[in-house]
């Protein structure tokens, strides 16, 4: 277990470092430096002013020096300063993180519940027609765009019926509606993979043995099918974090919520490169961290993973 742990954590750190390096190089590939881009976003600027600001932000240094300085600063927890507001990037992102975590976390939890409920219902429903209908729900959820559903619900609930505020007002509905909108979308791939897994498990001989022993359908589903099918769904859950983040950005815009979504939008529209860099790095880190967590959970579901040399959990699980 210890070796597996060290291996996975080492891998995760490597991925974050590579992501950081790629972001740095991508910024260098822009036709001009972040300061020039930022300052020319509205009107002509004096070259002297550009030069001054460049040297203040260290963009006049040789590439390697910039890279090492930024990396060293980052290790100290300093991600530089936002060009627009002058605030440290960590503060700007930190201020918005809570709201997004609340939205994304609730949505992820809700998505898991929705996925489980749909799969359970689609497996256990008494009528075959109903089972088929329920099994078609996940493709429907993933086909409905997040922004569209959000717009329709706001038009209906807020503008026509007047039961929901267009702006977040701290009420239950003003969090619940965006959470459900996001959760439906996020639940779709999980439910689909879980459903496929459950169907596969049902084709295995041991299910017949259980049936012959007189186990109830619910017992078979909850105690045996679900546990055996959970591995791939867990891997999907890890990958879903990317969808969740993109979905949060859209949901926050539609529901006028503060959070990373509006920071991303502003950072991109105002060409605030240090802030964009910080956001991309954060996204990469969160993605890697969640997938690391998923990998570490896998052995608990299936101890065989620990015995597989070089074994990547998702590869074995799928």
């Amino acid at each position, binding site marked *: 277990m210890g070796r597996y742990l060290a291996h996975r954590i080492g891998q995760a750190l490597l991925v974050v470092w590579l992501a950081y390096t790629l972001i740095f190089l991508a910024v260098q590939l822009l036709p001009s430096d972040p300061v020039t881009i930022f300052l020319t976003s509205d009107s002509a600027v004096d070259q002297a002013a550009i030069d001054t600001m460049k040297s203040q932000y260290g963009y006049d240094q040789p590439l390697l020096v910039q890279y090492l300085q930024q990396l060293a600063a980052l290790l100290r927890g300093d991600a530089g300063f936002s060009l627009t507001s002058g605030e440290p990037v960590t503060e700007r992102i930190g201020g918005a993180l809570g709201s997004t975590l609340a939205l994304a976390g609730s949505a992820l939890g809700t998505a898991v519940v929705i996925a489980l409920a749909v799969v359970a219902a689609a497996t256990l429903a008494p009528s075959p027609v109903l089972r088929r209908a329920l099994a078609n729900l996940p493709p429907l959820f993933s086909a409905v765009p997040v922004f569209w559903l959000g717009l329709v619900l706001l038009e209906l609930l807020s503008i026509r019926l007047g039961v929901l505020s267009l702006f977040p007002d701290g009420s239950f509905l003003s969090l619940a509606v965006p959470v459900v909108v996001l959760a439906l979308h996020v639940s779709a791939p999980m439910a689909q993979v879980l459903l496929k897994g459950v169907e596969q498990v049902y084709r295995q001989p041991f299910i017949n043995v259980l049936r012959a022993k007189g186990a109830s359908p619910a017992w078979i589903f909850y105690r045996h099918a679900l546990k055996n099918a959970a591995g791939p769904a867990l891997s999907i859950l890890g990958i879903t974090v990317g969808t969740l983040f993109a979905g949060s950005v859209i949901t926050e815009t539609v529901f006028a919520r503060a959070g990373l979504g509006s920071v991303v939008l502003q950072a991109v*529209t105002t060409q605030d490169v240090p802030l964009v860099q910080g956001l991309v790095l954060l996204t990469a880190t969160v993605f890697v961290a969640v997938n690391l967590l998923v990998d570490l959970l896998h052995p608990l579901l299936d101890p065989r993973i620990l015995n597989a040399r070089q074994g990547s959990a998702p590869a074995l699980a799928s």
Partner: protein
Amino acid sequence: MVSPAPTGRINGRISGHPNGPRTPLRIAALFAAAALTLTGCGSGAQGGSAGANAANAQASPAGEPVDGGTLVYAEVTPINNWQTQAARFYEKSNVLNSVLDRLTYFDPEKGEPVPWIASAFSANADSTEFTFTIRPGVTFSDGTALDAAAIKANLDSFGHGIPAAQIQPNVDFAGYQTSEVIGTNQVKVTLDAPNSNFLRATSSVTAGLVSPATLQQDAAGQSAISSISGSGPFVYESEKPDEEVVLAKRDGYAWAPEGADNPGEAHLDKVVIKYLPEVAHRAGAVQSGQVDLVRGLQPVDEAALAASGNQVVAADGVDLTVNMAAVRIGSGKLADPAVRQALQAGIDRQSIKDTVLSESYTLAGSVLNHQAPGFVDLSADLAYDPEKAKKLLDDAGWQPGSDGIREKDGEKLEVTVTSSNNSVVIKPAFELIEQQWRQIGVKLNNRAGDNTFLTTAMPDPNVEFYGTRQFIYGGLGPIFEPANNTMTHTSDPELNALFAAERAAAPGPERDEVLAAEQRALVVDKAFSLVLWDEVQVYGAHRSTHIEFTSGTAPIFQSAWKVDG
């Protein structure tokens, strides 16, 4: 028309506004609006919109102002940098307008600056020295006095920037050298070159006055609205970052611009600024009463909002250029003025108005707004004439290729436009221009509204068109003149001479003559600006909201009120 005679502080067109027409210009505008209503009614879709404008005549509240209440205003995107000189975007200037006072106020009806914090001002003959007399008794909201020393500190920060806080000089303060305090209440500004636009520049929100303590802060401090202390009719109360800013009325405010409707404290107790990035909800937000005022209404929503008994208000951008496709010649394809003139003649502006705009929009007659001082009407030169366009292109050596797109020396006449997504109408407008130019053999790659592309396109002179409009507080010079200007990326010696002459000319007939020559050069002879429509910001206002606007399209919350308080 029960209101007392109002003064020159109002801007914003609603036909049958409770304050009514007061000047020949306004009466003319009303007739024009009536005429548009008549013609509009006969033309299908546009009839709805024009009729709607008439409908909101009844909706707009009349009577005496009501004191008290909270006005909820929805802006387009959140802002987290409130530093004065950075207020070149509506999201910022619309809020800072009520927090920061300025030395002067630009009166669009007089067409000149009038006294505000400067109770008197004068310039020397060659516009290199300006003297401001500071109104006594004005204080910043942090309690310090807005005196001559504070003015000097502010002017220095505009003229030179604040290097320690990474704050750049104000682009409209060209030639600023020094300020000195004279006597007890006067400040003399010296420029190193004539600039007759200087007074106008002091009326801009980007020249808003802040307390000396605010100027001492670092970049983050000066960018945070919580730490900005101004002398305006509203003061910061609270903020939820990226969600809302709450402003409260400043008790004891008594220094509104000369001739203001309301010389003293604001009628409203509070203004809450919220953000509504989603364009589809803006009309609904007003209709359902969740906001009292919203900016950035789509033309398609105007009719429905007015039909619901609420108001569609067009705030004219007198302080701005018109919306245009500014031409860059870096790619070489548009280096020949004849090609640019052909594209100018190949735009059917009326059809843009009929298809993607509304009656709230006025087609451009020049690079300046119709009400701007010195405007000359060049609409005769802007007539849609595809045959003339084709002939110009033929003569310039661009011959139609097999696919109908013109070619010269193996290169296709394929051009690209960039713009931000801030304007709700610019992308559809360029979609229509794309079709119109196809008729004359020109291919337009429409990247309007793509903010990611804009990042790289803005500093790139090879991207042929930049769709935008700009503030003109410093005249047309700062926009088109410097070699690194973002509009054309072209420094034209003849134009530069005109811009220099504009700054040196005395306000009045002499400057108007230079302005006319500038407009003719930019629009007709050199065709660096393919003009489209006068800048206007279309607001939606609830039926119980009384609101007027500055000539920079900012809402004036100080004189606003709500029927139900």
